[in-house]
């Protein structure tokens, strides 16, 4: 799981163009949206594509996104459960 969270952080930095950020600046448990990292709806689209492109996971129900993308930890858990 630790490897996956690290990889996810690297992929998020690349996908969201956070080039001036280091992986250790993103907390595994902190919320990705709102008061946490501060991502918004366009970033959500980027994260949906990231999951599909890198892990082959398609989110069928958009309402699930809120839980899946809550934090790096929840994303990693979802990937572990659903990775094809």
């Amino acid at each position, binding site marked *: 799981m630790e490897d996956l969270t690290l990889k996810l952080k690297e992929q998020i930095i690349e*996908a*969201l*163009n*956070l*080039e*001036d*950020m280091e992986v250790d*600046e993103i907390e595994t448990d902190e919320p990705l949206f709102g008061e946490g*990292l*501060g*991502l918004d709806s*366009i*970033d959500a*689209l*980027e994260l949906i*594509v990231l999951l*599909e*492109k890198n892990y082959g996971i398609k989110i069928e129900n958009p309402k699930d996104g809120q839980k899946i993308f809550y934090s790096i930890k929840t994303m990693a858990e979802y990937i572990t459960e659903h990775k094809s």
Partner: protein
Amino acid sequence: MVYINGTASLSPQNSLDYNKFLEGIIEYEKDFLQSIKPNYKEYMKPIAARRMSKTVKNGIICSQKALQEAKVDIPDAIIVGTGLGIVSDTEKFLENMLNNDEKFLTPTAFIQSTHNTVAAQIALKIKCHNYNFTYVNRGFSFESAVIDAIMHINEGKKNILIGGTDEMSEHYFHIIRKNGRWKKTKVKNTELLNYTTNGAICGEGVNFFVLSSEKKEDSYSEIKAINTFYKPENSEEINSKLQSFLNDADIKINDIDLVINGHTGNAAGDKIYDDFLQENFENKPALYYKHLTGEYQTANSFALWLGANILKTKIIPDFTRLNDKPISKVKNILIYNHYFNINHSFILLSQA
């Protein structure tokens, strides 16, 4: 009257800090010159910068610095000139389309790839709802922005933020190199004038200014006049345009103390500058600057930055000297630029 009250430049040299710039030229031997990357974290949070390409970030930094220097919070207009816009983001989303077989497409690079992104992001950052315009007129892009700003000031506006921005990407560089515009091999910028081959040194940069109707104690200079002309037939036509320009500005050729030319290392293009100097300013000191920045469609904005700083500080960097004609005083500077003998322009700067 139009005064320059604030400037900022990001280029392949240490131009963001003029004192460091004067310390010397940064030498390169490269295919094309790239702007020095500032520490963006000093100016914006990474999360705020995530949808900004290099040019947008550099535009935000330079505009902020120029506005701070001019002590202007909200300008009456934001006008930017760019030849290529945000070409790196355009390439990014096209590349994504190709590499992923038109799947997995995200909106960010596409949204940011429009040419007016720099002017728009500056407006968003400072919450400026005034006139916002971007000129994409190839080698006249920056000059068009200057002309528009002057017209706004003549109509009663007080402070206008203008900028010239261009970035060079690997893809675009290689495409244009194929048609012979850029040199076929790596170029040593400090030896630019020794090249006898065709093809220019390629570069990029971002230069911003606050133009104001009001002269201040620390104003850089006054923009007396600007003129553009397209594809002149020969040197006679250029000389004739010069005479008309100076007549309209009510200044004599002898009153020009210094000429800034845009030598690029392209033998054919540089001959135009050499003939221009020989036929009009044989005994006048002349400078050049594209060995510092490379050639790009808004490179003339760096010439304006250089000329404005020279008029303010009275310091002329040795590494910009084109000849060794003595310099007794510098009150009037003529900037003559052409972009591949297509887009020609004159800018007359005077001591404020």
